[in-house]
């Protein structure tokens, strides 16, 4: 039964999985990763109270933390755990995937794989399946620790699933891009560098670009009647575009899970209108979860609007838009991967509607003086048939 099951699995995936899990290394890595995550969760728990709106300035360790609300701790742990997963995936995925094709080329096993009937699609899928399997193991191992948030509240199971979807989509896109670069450059080091550059662009470059574009737009005094503060996304939809770029960013998507419509990080003097599952979190750059109540057209109202997450078409939350965009990008790069990894020989039936000779003039090959003297192939007829075989 087990054997029959394994026969169905892509042979490339099976080989990769077997080899990847061989020896103590993967388990040691898993243990280190879990220990780090546990440390992160413990640190957040011990800081309980230090950032609460009701805090006296102390924390759990100092014993002077004042009255706190459990859901604050739950939301902090949720954000911390998934930030840890997002960063881990961003570091680990290119390292695991960037050599999947190029290492085969470097080690001389690629040609032998190409002459088997395994098709390009199966080759890419098999390799991706193996790596995604290993990363999913890492993510699933974090699940019990992530479930600690339910002890504190403030996070629903749907929020947890959304968090996992965001991490998985990041993992899928980065792995596909890594394999694509691996097949394109045929050198592992180059593929690793290219993938890290692209992932840095998505993770860090997009928020910076979005922020700088927004600043440029807001500081334009000619907008909406010479007032930088007189704007509305409803009457000026173009205004929201820089923010919509955040659909490429997993951190912003994670921030939108807990507070899809209130991403504002309030200042000290802001009048905040609290809701049961929203809160202020001083000093935490990832917390956007407060919904303030301001007088209209006040400076604080403008600040709130500036920081508010974008309005996506169809009323989608930012993280939902992120999932759609990353799915589309993953499929796009997957198709490119299949073309790059095992290019199928061009079929003679598929011809261009024009002859390349019209565009590229073909010159007569210059006569090689050595070849010019080459005699035609000499075929020597045997006196008898070759030796009988067998």
């Amino acid at each position, binding site marked *: 039964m087990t054997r029959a099951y394994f*026969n169905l699995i892509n*042979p490339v995936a099976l080989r990769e999985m077997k080899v990847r899990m061989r020896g103590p290394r993967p388990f040691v890595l898993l243990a280190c990763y879990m220990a780090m995550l546990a440390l992160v969760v413990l640190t957040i728990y011990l800081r309980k109270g230090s950032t609460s709106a009701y805090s006296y300035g102390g924390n759990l360790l100092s014993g002077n933390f004042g009255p706190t609300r459990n859901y604050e701790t739950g939301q902090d742990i949720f954000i911390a755990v998934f930030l840890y997963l997002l960063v881990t995936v961003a570091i680990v995925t290119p390292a695991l995937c960037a050599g999947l094709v190029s290492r085969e080329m470097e080690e001389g*096993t690629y040609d032998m794989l190409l002459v*088997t009937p395994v098709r390009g699609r199966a080759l890419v899928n098999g390799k991706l399946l193996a790596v995604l399997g290993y990363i999913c193991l890492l993510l699933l191992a974090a699940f019990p620790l992530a479930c600690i948030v339910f002890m504190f509240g403030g996070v629903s199971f749907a929020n947890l699933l959304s968090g996992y979807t965001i991490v998985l989509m990041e993992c899928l896109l980065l792995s596909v891009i890594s394999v694509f670069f691996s097949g394109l450059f045929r050198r592992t080091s180059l593929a690793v560098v290219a993938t890290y550059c692209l992932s840095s662009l998505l993770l860090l470059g997009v928020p910076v670009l979005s922020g700088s574009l927004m600043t440029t737009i807001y500081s334009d005094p000619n907008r909406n009647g010479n007032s930088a503060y007189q704007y509305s996304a409803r009457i000026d939809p173009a205004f929201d575009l820089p923010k919509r770029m955040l659909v490429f960013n997993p951190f912003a998507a994670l921030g939108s899970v807990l507070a899809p419509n209130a991403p504002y990080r309030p200042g000290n003097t802001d009048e905040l209108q609290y809701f049961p599952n929203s809160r202020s979190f001083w000093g935490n750059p990832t917390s956007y979860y407060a919904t303030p109540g301001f007088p209209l057209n006040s400076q604080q109202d403008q600040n709130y609007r500036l920081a508010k997450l974008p309005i996506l078409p169809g009323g989608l939350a930012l993280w939902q838009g992120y999932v759609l965009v990353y799915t589309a990008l993953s499929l796009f790069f997957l198709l490119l991967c299949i073309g790059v990894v095992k290019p199928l020989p061009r079929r003679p039936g598929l011809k261009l509607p024009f002859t390349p000779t019209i565009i590229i003039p073909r010159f007569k090959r210059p006569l090689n003086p050595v070849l010019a003297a080459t005699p035609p192939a*000499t*075929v*020597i*007829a*045997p006196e008898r048939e*070759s030796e009988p075989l067998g």
Partner: protein
Amino acid sequence: MSESSAAASVSPGYNIIDAQGLSKRYPGQKAYALEDFTLAIPQGTIFGLIGPNGAGKSSVLKILATLLQPDRGDVYVAGVSVRRNPHKIRYLIGYMPDEYGLYQNMRVAEYLEFFAACYGIHGKRKTRLIGELLELVELDDRRNQELGTLSRGMKQRLCLAHTLVHDPKVLLLDEPAAGLDPPARIELRELLRELSRMGKTIILSSHVLNDVQQMCDTLGIMAHGRLLSYGPTVKVVNQIDKLPRRGIKLRVLSEADLHRAVQVAENFPLLTKRSVHTDPESLTLEALLEGDDRTSAAFLAHLTMSGIFVAQYGQSTARLEELFLKG
């Protein structure tokens, strides 16, 4: 008579390989790697493709293995076109590249199991097949050994075994004897003979005639992407012997002797111009002489009479193409 029909006439048997007018030029290269290459190989033969580095041997094998598309021409393996049906061809051929790699962290049996799975062979059939293959290449006692710990000869045999997992009709072996010590070469020769007796057609390449002349029934000599000569091994070797040019290779005892040998060679009237090559590390000298075996013997006598101690003296076969091109 065209080359193809002439080649076909070598044996009245069925031509399992039929290459017609193959041409291939790599992007960015001016010279053709293959030019109008035509060849027919009867079923069950061991065919050796000889030529210097860059002659186009590997390109021929890669085209046969569906790894390269020819610019012009086509090859038929057992009647199937490489251009039109590359997927079908992959079931008909087993290919061992010149620089093959092995998955170092796999075990011997696992390695074969992986390739069997790639060809859709599963279950009891796979187990039986792997047992038989390991027995054939004499690695059955090492089935659980990691590939990284195998010797070069064992790796070669294992790689050969992997080309056989799907019982192909044609084996394409690129430089199979390269880097093997004499006992391993003898083992390889015996193995190829055994496979030939099993009905496999084997095409192997080498740049050294001595490596393959004892393994092959038929030889083809290539240079600059062209087939220069083709026929039964004995005949081709005889033809080389009859060529009015000899490549010689000698080893002397000291560096001083090597310098003097170069001077003597350059003053020898039957030396081909600019054909002297020396290797100070191994104290060897290679040169081309215009003449037959008597010229070669006279050159040796000339060296000895000049007071040079010659430790080894023999014919050089490495620059085979020079004999053909200029002979």
